[in-house]
């Protein structure tokens, strides 16, 4: 039995908009073990963004308990959560969120810049390793505006890996990419999964669920489905079967 990385117990999150109280999450409970590749799906308004914010320690639940790697997050201060994000979480965003006019290596170094325990030589070494791991070993000094969408997303994934996080949180990570590039990114995620990384992939695209090991479906703030995927498709095979782009 592998270790539990994430444990949610009756998570509720309410927002007060004007006079109304909006219940974004109405009691969500599940746990995720180390090495799982989980897709969280749901249409817009299902509460998946709120859940992602809570999982990413950007937000705290109104009620319920959340343990990340055994640490209770609910009562944590803003600063402590920032440090927790720095050490335990790697984010991958839909729109990459790379720093403009900045090289790949500097972008990947960013999380380590906020960790005083890591020396500059160590930081550089780890950034280079992370970029090699996502297949960008030959583009270390390329600036963000000289790269394609797929390359930028690889840089973003390298950035998420560089602090060796307990969990990688991907928010519609393939949403801005064409089909072919999306599958290239999925191949990368599957490889990271195979290497033992814990990945949570939030998406509204149901196709992606076939490539993950477990699917959680949200609707109106409740978990309506939580299934283990016994038939994981290989993204690499799908990619190979795709018609090659004319201009490639």
């Amino acid at each position: 039995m592998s270790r539990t990385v994430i444990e949610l117990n009756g998570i509720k999150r309410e927002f007060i908009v004007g006079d109304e109280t909006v219940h974004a999450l109405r009691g969500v409970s599940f746990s995720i073990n180390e090495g799982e590749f989980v897709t969280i799906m749901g249409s817009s308004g299902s509460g998946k963004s709120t859940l992602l914010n809570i999982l990413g320690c950007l937000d705290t639940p109104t009620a319920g308990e959340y343990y990340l790697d055994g640490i209770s997050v609910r009562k944590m201060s803003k600063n402590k959560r920032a440090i927790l994000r720095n050490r335990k979480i790697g984010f991958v965003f839909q729109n990459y969120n790379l720093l403009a006019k900045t090289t790949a290596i500097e972008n990947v170094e960013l999380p380590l810049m906020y960790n005083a325990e890591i020396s500059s030589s160590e930081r550089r070494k780890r950034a280079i390793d992370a970029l090699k791991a996502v297949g960008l070993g030959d583009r270390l000094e390329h600036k963000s505006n000289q790269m394609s969408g797929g390359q930028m997303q690889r840089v973003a994934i390298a950035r998420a890996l560089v602090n060796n996080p307990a969990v990688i949180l991907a928010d519609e990570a393939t949403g801005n990419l064409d089909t072919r590039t999306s599958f290239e990114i999925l191949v990368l995620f599957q490889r990271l999964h195979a290497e033992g990384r814990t990945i949570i992939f939030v998406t509204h695209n149901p196709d992606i669920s076939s490539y993950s090991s477990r699917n959680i479906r949200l609707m109106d703030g409740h978990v309506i489905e939580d299934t283990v995927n016994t038939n994981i498709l290989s993204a690499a095979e799908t990619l190979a079967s795709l018609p090659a782009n004319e201009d490639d």
Partner: protein
Amino acid sequence: MNWTNLFRISLKALANNKMRAFLTMLGIIIGVAAVITMISLGQGAKKNIQDEISGMGSNMIMIHPGGERRGGVRLDPSEMQTLKETDYKMLRKENLFLAGISPNVSMSGQLISGNSNYPSSVSGVSTDYISIRQLNVAEGEMFTETDIRKSAKVCVIGTTIVENLFPDGDNPLGKIIRLNQVPLKVIGILESKGYNSMGMDQDDIVLVPYTTVMKRFRAIDYLEGIFASAISEDMTDLATADIESILRRQHKLKDEEPDDFMIRTQQELSEILDTTTNLLTTLLACIAGISLLVGGIGIMNIMYVSVTERTREIGLRMSVGARSIDILVQFLIEAILISITGGILGILTGCGASAAIRWLGDWPVAIQPWSVILSFLVCTVTGVFFGWYPAKKAAALDPIDALRYE
């Protein structure tokens, strides 16, 4: 807190926007340069005037007849005749704080030598006058006490007089010059002192024994003034008080009666002029200070816009683990870097401009080390002060909202 990394992050952010950083800096550069140049100019003018005043004489005290002038009230001519030769002699005998003392009576008219003539005036003085006014006899010698006693017809002349009366380059020593039919033998020539700041030719001068002027030229028994010099600058006040009591006694003034003479010291004169030049410096510095303030507001404005523009970047930094304080410090460092770099460039520009003014415009300029330090401190404070608000705003952003900001 990881200062080195935050410093690197700030530096990188500025480097990514070099043009903008430079333009923001320009406000500070101009402000600091203006402060330094203006203060240099003001202080240069002050120093110039101070030199001028100390060149006039050493610790000079001037005594004039007549009471305090009251605006517009015409003085009785007899009031202008209150200083007598006996006053001078008594002061000379009794006042212990004076290094030298000389009466002053003058006579103007046309000086004639051979077929040259020149309008000027002669000053009747005593032998001390030379030391009081810091004059030097270049050739020949000053007249003596004996000359004074005999009302001798001798004179010591300045170089302007030499040039005008002896245009052919003859040696004036021993020659006779005439004023109002009275022949004066030239026994000495003064070293040239040039023009003073008021444009007066200090070499247009003829010194004769005061007794000669009083008896031979004007037939008067009063003095137009007395010049004296205190032993040292510190003694000026004591000397002045002593002069006042001696003169009041001499003039038999009762306690309630006002002085019938006026004492002015060089110190007073320099204080008055100092006040004027300090006012000038303050005014210049204020104008320059305003431009520094405007520069500071420029920083605030740019930093403020920059926070809005970089909202997503801030959100990202927060999501990868930057705390609010890290963001605050990053933006503060950026503001301070802009202002300090601007400050250093401004100091260089200001010193350069001051030097250029001195060199090209031949203006008196004195770069003040304190103005350099002050303006540097001011721009650091400006950076912190005007950088604080935008930095605070950046640090207060919510990472979720910041990440979604379009």
